């Protein structure tokens, strides 16, 4: 057998049932990615005799004697294919995990296909961009600002530093590395929603050739923890064990097999005999607190930070300002309704997983797909009682996160397996495992009551939230608290009341998800504002203007918070409302639609604290190199959020140099310092502030060093174009580095940010929709979002974050839906049954930025990564209500869900 890959013959032969994708990766072609392994996402696209195919579906033996081209070979030796260059010029990627497949597909399209990208690209999913930047690439647009002079990088549309590697398939993601002697882990998962493990017989499994170990609850530390990672451990309950003797959802891990191959590990999993004592299961969150309901964590107490385990209550909150009931009784208009936000999945294209090994010094190394390497190291250190310096956790490039990787789902098992076997180990979750056994958004039932006076001033706002956290309480409390915070704090209202309950059920756990609870309550609050406005005959934008907090107004949500560090570092909500209102009123092409299509507009707003509460820490270190460039070390991770670009811009601007002179090292605990992690939109606002502080310090140090050499007053020194200047004297950074080396005083500086005080950011979304009253189909005719991101660090990237947020939120609002049946099983754990937005599903969104400058954020910037998601479902619901006169309260707004009410009303 002989296989020709990128012009090079390989003598290796694939296994009988092996697919081309894994065979190519075994041959070192790491540009071939796994998004779904089922032919649905296109990340594994390669060319076979010049034709694009999904390599995960091609039996490897069929590629024999055919020319295989992967992304690494598309441009020829050291070359760049025009489509690769086009993706670079347009910056048609964020995390870049889909990019290889996207480029190979786009490079294969004929002219006819290029004019209908919605059809041509239906086999390529991008979870990050919202597709506009990809379309730009196919159109040959250049979105990059060229030739930015030294010291002027901040605020400019500079490209992502990893771009050249991303488009050539050379950027290294979690599994893109070779390790000799690697063993593979497969997990046996529970088929029962609730059961006690009476006995596990592993003897048959251990007899499978190639099996090194079978790990069960008897092998794992019995320490209680949470998979959620926060700076403060007290934010989450201790209710989870690495491997437990009770299973609480279908898909929970029961045992881990460590074997020479995935095939052997799978076979051993099938041979493990588990004796379960089935326990009654609780699936419906509405029943969780009812008398007689099965108790899911009976042994947990408040000492474990579980509010009331006997009622399946992880966390609750209650509070009232004023008197809501009295206010509602006397309000000119009132509104009351119940909204249901469903369960959706992050669907980052790179699945969870990692590799772990013990190095020569005996330290545990974990290379993993995470947003929180430092917090994961701390957890592993605690659980396995290892000194912090004996644990290293790191990531290179991560293929998407969206909150799903602010958890420890695999690193604990990886560590356990590496420590038990002494061998390097790998665990790579399948797409199905992502759906059934990682985390989801918290499904919520939100009951709202609201009132206003005749002038349209809010008189009362009341929210009653039931949040379903699933089998474990990771993020249960913080998500519930967050959902009840900014969603109502953004409105001035004398009477506010909240009741929140986060309950356990025997279903896949919910966890951190972009928006962190706000989208689920926002849809209710923003609907109520519109409904009150409609009753009063006030326009939706005016209603909001009359009620939103203005600069200096207290931002209040009961009960009183213990955190008082949220300030108006800047305020652009008024601008955002104006921008969206104006854009929605602007003349545009009128679509030709039959009278069956009902047209309506909707807006919704969101406010978000720029940092999570209770501390978010980042350290940064920057050092001058001999060549006059700088090494910048940060802890925050890059998963398409674009912070790598922004950190270089901050440092280059502060140090009067260009971004290419800043070499970034990131997301590795071995680099020292601490970083809470890339979550809560902290990559720019917190970690960027640390980088800014480090660069400011180094800028001072550079001036002091030059002043010392010149024997002049440091106050006369400035930095200009990679040079220290004082009067007519000039010393280049390279000369300064030489001087420092001769003096034995290397020029390095540290910066730190504690994540406090915090500021607030704003987003306003507007939609014009057409709803077909005969079919329930929905078309988005116009989509507008205005964002208040402070001084925008990188307009191109920030626009991409907004567009991507809108696209992901439209997925949840229109299509995506995890269905859990009466037994607790996820019935649609694959992309073909969980419709992620494809090119054809996502409208172009006009993006506007408010002109503000934040007094707290670095160089005036604010965070802008999760919040663009938050107002989207709410605005869509308002637009549908405007079009149809029907208030739909439970997304996703699919045709088959809209149809019954439309049919009833319109026939």
């Amino acid at each position, binding site marked *: 057998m002989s296989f020709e890959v990128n012009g090079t013959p390989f003598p290796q032969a694939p296994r*009988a049932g092996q697919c081309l994708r894994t065979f190519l990766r075994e041959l070192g072609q790491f540009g071939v990615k796994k998004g779904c392994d*089922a032919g649905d996402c296109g990340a594994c696209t390669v060319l076979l005799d010049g034709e694009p195919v999904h390599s995960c*579906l091609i*039996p490897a033996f069929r590629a024999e004697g055919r020319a295989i081209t992967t992304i690494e070979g598309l441009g020829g030796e050291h070359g760049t294919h025009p489509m690769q260059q086009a993706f670079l010029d347009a910056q048609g990627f964020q995390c870049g995990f889909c990019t290889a497949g996207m480029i190979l597909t786009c490079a294969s399209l004929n002219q006819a296909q290029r004019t209908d990208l919605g059809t041509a690209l239906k086999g390529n999913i991008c979870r990050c961009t919202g597709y506009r930047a990809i379309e730009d690439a196919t159109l040959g647009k250049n979105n990059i600002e060229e030739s930015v002079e030294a010291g002027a990088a901040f605020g400019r549309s500079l490209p992502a530093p990893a771009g050249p590697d991303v488009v050539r398939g050379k950027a290294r993601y979690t599994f893109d590395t070779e390790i000799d002697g690697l063993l593979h882990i497969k997990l046996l998962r529970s088929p029962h929603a609730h059961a006690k493990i009476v006995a596990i017989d592993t003897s048959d499994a251990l007899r499978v050739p190639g099996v090194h170990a079978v790990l069960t609850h008897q092998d794992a530390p019995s320490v209680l923890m949470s998979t959620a990672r926060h700076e403060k451990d007290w934010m989450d309950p201790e209710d989870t064990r690495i491997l437990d003797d009770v299973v609480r959802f279908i898909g929970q891990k029961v045992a881990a097999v460590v074997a020479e191959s995935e095939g052997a590990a799978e076979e051993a999993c099938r041979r493990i005999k588990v004796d379960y004592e089935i326990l009654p299961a609780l699936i419906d969150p509405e029943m969780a607190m009812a008398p007689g309901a099965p108790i899911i964590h009976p042994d947990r107490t408040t000492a474990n930070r579980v509010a009331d385990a006997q009622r399946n209550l992880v966390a609750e909150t209650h509070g009232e300002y004023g008197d809501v009931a009295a206010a509602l009784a006397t309000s000119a208009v009132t509104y009351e309704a119940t909204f249901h936000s469903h369960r959706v999945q992050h669907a980052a294209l790179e699945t969870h997983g990692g590799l772990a090994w013990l190095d020569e010094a005996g330290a545990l190394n974990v290379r993993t797909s995470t947003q929180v390497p430092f917090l994961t190291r701390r957890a592993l250190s605690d659980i396995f009682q290892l000194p912090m310096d004996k644990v290293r956790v790191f990531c290179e490039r991560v293929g998407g996160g969206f909150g799903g990787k602010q958890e420890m789902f695999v690193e604990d098992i990886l560590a356990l397996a590496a420590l038990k076997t002494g061998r390097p180990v790998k665990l790579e979750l399948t797409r199905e495992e992502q759906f059934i056994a990682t985390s989801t958004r918290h499904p919520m039932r939100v009951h709202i009551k609201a009132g206003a006076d005749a002038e349209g001033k809010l008189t009362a706002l009341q929210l009653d939230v039931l949040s379903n956290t699933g089998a474990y309480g990771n993020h249960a409390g913080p998500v519930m608290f967050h959902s009840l915070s900014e969603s109502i704090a953004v409105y001035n209202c004398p009477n506010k009341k909240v009741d929140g309950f986060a309950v356990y059920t025997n279903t896949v756990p919910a966890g951190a998800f972009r928006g962190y609870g706000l989208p689920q309550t926002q849809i209710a609050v923003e609907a109520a504002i519109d409904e009150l406005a409609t009753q009063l005959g006030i326009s939706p934008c005016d209603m909001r203007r009359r009620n939103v907090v203005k600069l200096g107004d207290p931002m209040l949500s009961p009960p009183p918070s213990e955190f008082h560090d949220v300030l108006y570092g800047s305020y652009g909500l008024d601008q955002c409302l104006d921008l969206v209102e104006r854009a929605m009123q602007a003349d545009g092409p009128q679509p030709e639609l039959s009278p069956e299509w009902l047209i309506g507009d909707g807006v919704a707003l969101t406010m978000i604290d720029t940092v999570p509460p209770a501390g978010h820490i980042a350290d940064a270190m920057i050092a001058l190199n001999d060549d006059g460039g700088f090494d910048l070390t940060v802890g925050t991770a890059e998963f398409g959020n674009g912070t790598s670009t922004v950190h270089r811009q901050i440092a280059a601007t502060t140090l009067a140099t260009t971004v290419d002179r800043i070499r970034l090292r990131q997301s590795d605990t071995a680099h020292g310092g601490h970083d809470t992690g890339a979550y809560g939109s902290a990559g720019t606002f917190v970690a960027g502030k640390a980088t800014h502080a480090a660069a400011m310090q180094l800028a001072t140090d550079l001036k002091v060093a030059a002043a010392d050499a010149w024997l002049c007053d440091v106050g006369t020194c400035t930095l200009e174009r990679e040079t220290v200047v004082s009067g007519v004297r000039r010393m280049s950074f390279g000369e300064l580095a030489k001087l420092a080396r001769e003096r034995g005083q290397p020029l390095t500086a540290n910066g730190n940010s504690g994540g406090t005080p915090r500021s607030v950011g704003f987003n306003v979304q507007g939609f014009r929709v057409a709803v077909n009253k005969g079919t329930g189909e929905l078309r988005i005719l116009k989509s507008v979002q205005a964002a208040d991101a402070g001084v925008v660090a990188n307009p191109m990237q920030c626009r991409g974050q907004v567009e991507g947020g809108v696209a992901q939120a439209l997925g949840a609002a229109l299509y995506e839906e995890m269905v859990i049946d009466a037994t607790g099983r996820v019935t649609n754990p694959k992309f073909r049954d969980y419709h992620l937005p494809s090119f*054809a599903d996502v409208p172009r969104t006009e993006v506007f930025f408010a002109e503000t400058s934040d007094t707290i954020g670095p160089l005036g910037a604010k965070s802008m990564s999760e919040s663009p998601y938050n107002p989207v479902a709410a605005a869509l619901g308002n637009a549908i209500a405007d079009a149809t006169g029907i208030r739909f309260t439970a997304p996703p707004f699919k045709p088959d869900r809209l149809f019954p009410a439309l049919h009833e009303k319109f026939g």
Partner: protein
Amino acid sequence: MDLNTITTVSHPQTRCDLPAWTAGDAWLAGGTWLFSEPQAHLTRLIDLTDLKWPALTITETHLSVAATCTVAQLDGLACPPDWLAAPLIGQCCRAFLASFKIWKTATVGGNLCMSLPAGPMISLTSALDGVCTIWKAGGGEQTIPVINFVTGDQRNLLTPGDLIRQIDIPVATLKRRTAFRHISLAPVGRSAALLIGSLDADGMLALTVTASTVRPIRLSFSKAPVASALRDAIAQQITDELYHTDIHGKPLWRKHMTLRLAEEIRSELLGARSS
């Protein structure tokens, strides 16, 4: 994905070479479904490629589509000008949830064997009066109209070891005027209702309902029905339990879309303006 339990792939070149069917065997045509899901019960793949069945053969009476004909090959067929039904081929290929990249590999026979309600090759071949030829496991052949071959959601008349050899479509039906409608929950999503109407020279109207129902259903009218007659016929012949339900569409909606699309087809074929 890797099928790690597979230990052997056999490559028969003739029917005589076909190995005796045993538990753990699977036919491998395109493999686009087989390799898309875990198949831990399988140990051997029997690759049909080397049988080298001609993908498409046109005779005076029939278009013969080999089971191993890929969707792309069918889509690329240059049809004679008097095959008025030719546009249906492209319309049905485009109704695939999968993209053009999968069409190069996925086969017509594979789509029939999967017997999903939304299988567009089922829609196409049943609407065109296609007849499957089945090589029976024990030897011999059997012919079954496609409309009867699929019996329910992922259910059909094949017994273990049976193999679809080809689907024969009469040239006469390819000369009929046809109309095509489908709808999905998303612009390029999986079909939730896919209806095909055809009108022959004698005025006979045939309506084939797929995707919205668990199996293809054929309604025939010796002369063109009025709207109410069409509605009544659908209500009578497609009872509520025949409407399919899954994540891709609720049955009540599928039912109404079936009625709606059927009327659009009737109007189009009878020359009226479609609503």
